[in-house]
């Protein structure tokens, strides 16, 4: 049984290895140079205020071609599970229905449940290995940019600013394992239910995209309770300030000074008592030098920040991976049960 499974999977495996090899060459050819630039930039050994400047210089130096590779890498890691679901998962069983070969293979002296188990094991393991391999490769390549982007406020690599950044989180760590397993089994399930490849591909894409949008926006932020901190309006304020008529204003930050890389849920201006404020003290309207921040700070106004600490990175990675793997296991179990029964 394994022989047939492997033989049928061979063309896809070769395609995947070719794609992986091409990206490995791209990353391998540019990675060492990027790392040496990082080493000579002195970002790794910086202290305090020097960090922002050194990081900014490094990021400026690597913009251009490296930005393209940076974005391409993220795109590849994020799209891999969808591509696998579409090209490996959906046709896995649907093709056999379409071409009628299920009648050939299900009437050999081996049960169809075992047949499916072999297919799921071989292609599923390959799906996980390829995606996570790609993620590790990219993670190694992009590490210097990620380190620097976390230290340089308002950098030209916004995705690198926090490990929790929407697309960056999806491309690093162990979550790609969960996505790959889920995308693949989702494709298989669609193929088992619909029995035709193209509609199964369409359904796979729609559901997978919906889940991949819903989870980061609606589920990931709620996996662990957020924490709250108050941040003073320091000189190196990094964020947006808006001033409206009659002294109304709002302040938001995109980073927490005490924890670079923390995941900021929300932030707003509060007074010394901790109450939200939206109107400036009269003294701070139209300041002499145009900068009202020192005045606001002197009136005890600070920023209340709701955030997820960086220490939650791995717990969130593990939990989300676990959720996706559980979904994948459910789908695989369903397919196993469905294929094991005689056709209705």
């Amino acid at each position, binding site marked *: *049984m394994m*022989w*047939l499974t492997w*033989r*049928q999977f061979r*063309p896809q495996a070769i395609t995947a290895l070719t794609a992986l090899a091409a990206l490995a060459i791209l990353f391998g050819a540019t990675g060492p140079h990027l790392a040496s630039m990082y080493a000579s930039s002195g970002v790794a050994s910086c202290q305090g205020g020097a960090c922002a400047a050194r990081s900014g210089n490094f990021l400026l130096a690597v913009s251009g071609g490296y930005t393209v590779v940076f974005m391409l890498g993220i795109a590849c890691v994020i799209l891999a599970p969808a591509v696998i679901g579409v090209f490996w998962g959906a046709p896995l069983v649907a093709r056999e229905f379409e*071409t*009628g*070969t*299920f*009648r*050939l*293979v*299900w*009437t*050999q*002296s*081996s*049960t169809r449940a075992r047949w499916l188990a072999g297919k799921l094991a071989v292609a599923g393991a390959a799906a996980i290995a390829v995606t996570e391999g790609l993620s590790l490769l990219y993670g190694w390549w992009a590490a210097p940019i990620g380190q620097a982007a976390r230290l340089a406020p308002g950098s030209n690599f916004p995705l690198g600013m926090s490990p929790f950044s929407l697309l960056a989180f999806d491309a690093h760590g162990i979550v790609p394992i969960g996505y790959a397993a889920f995308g693949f089994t989702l494709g298989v399930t669609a193929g088992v239910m619909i029995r035709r490849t193209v509609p199964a591909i369409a359904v796979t894409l729609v559901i997978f995209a919906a889940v991949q949008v819903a989870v980061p926006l609606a589920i990931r932020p709620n996996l662990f309770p957020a924490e709250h901190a108050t941040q003073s309006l320091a000189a190196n304020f990094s964020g947006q300030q808006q001033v409206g008529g009659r002294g109304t204003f709002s302040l938001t930050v995109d980073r927490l000074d005490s924890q670079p890389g923390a995941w900021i849920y929300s932030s707003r201006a509060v007074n010394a008592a901790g109450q939200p404020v939206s109107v400036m003290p009269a003294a701070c309207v139209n300041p002499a030098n145009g900068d009202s921040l020192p005045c606001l700070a002197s009136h005890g106004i600070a920023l209340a920040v709701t955030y997820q600490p960086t220490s939650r990175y791995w717990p969130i990675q593990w939990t989300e991976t676990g959720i996706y793997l559980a979904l994948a296991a459910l789908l695989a179990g369903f397919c196993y049960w469905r294929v094991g*029964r*005689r*056709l*209705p």
Partner: protein
Amino acid sequence: MTAVIETEGLGKRYRRLWALSECTLSVPAGHVVGLVGPNGAGKSTLLNIAAGLLAPTTGAIQVLGAPPPARPAELAKVGFLAQDAPVYAGLTVAEHLTLGARLNPGWDAEFARGRIDWLGLDPGQKAGQLSGGQRAQLALTLAIGKRPDLLILDEPVASLDPLARREFLEDLMEAIAERELSVVLSSHLMADLERVCDYLIVLVGSRVRVAGPVDELLATHHLLTGPRRDPATLPAGQQVISASHTDRQTTLLVRTSEPVLDPAWAVSEIGLEDMVLAYMRQATGGGRRRVPASQLEVGK
């Protein structure tokens, strides 16, 4: 008579459409059984249920004395050649034999290799490049190579040209000649089966219209031609399958185990194809004379 396939009120419904309903039949062991019927008679559905692929909606079926094959040991006993002879287009002929060897503990490698050689198939050729006849031959080699006790062939020649049909059926006879094997093959054309089967089941609209050993069917069916008369006046033992009349003449197909003694009739033998056509026409009501339903339940 032991049966390799026995069904009782077997039915299969797809959504609201019954592909097979109330089918009760018995396929005897040790024969090459032809299952003939028009398109839509339920032949394919019946054989797919027997091969363990489809679940019936109603009724019961026994294949080799057990429910349709599901476990490896049961699957090994039933060889199945599906309609249109599906093979893996991307795999070579040799790889299909490897598939057979890997998936069937009882695989007859010598037979399979010998048959491929003898057919002149190139082992290195992709199955997707084979002609329809070659593909059917390859699929048949797989089905026989697993050394089944029962070989089920679902419309094995439907997609082949006349020459390939003949070759395929001749090769089939040769391949199964030395094997202790029960064979069921279906077709909507009697002409396909005439040369190979020694037992016939005519299935129309899920019902068995007639069934029996071919030589017995030939011996008991007669074509009577004589002056015009009402078929109702025939002796009790003579069952009218079809009747046609001209102004002066009546032609009847009757089934009887007794000799026809009435000197008014010119008695002639009838070929299998004409006989089966008469049964099909009778069942579909297309005959010149409609037969009451009670008379349709013949044979068995």
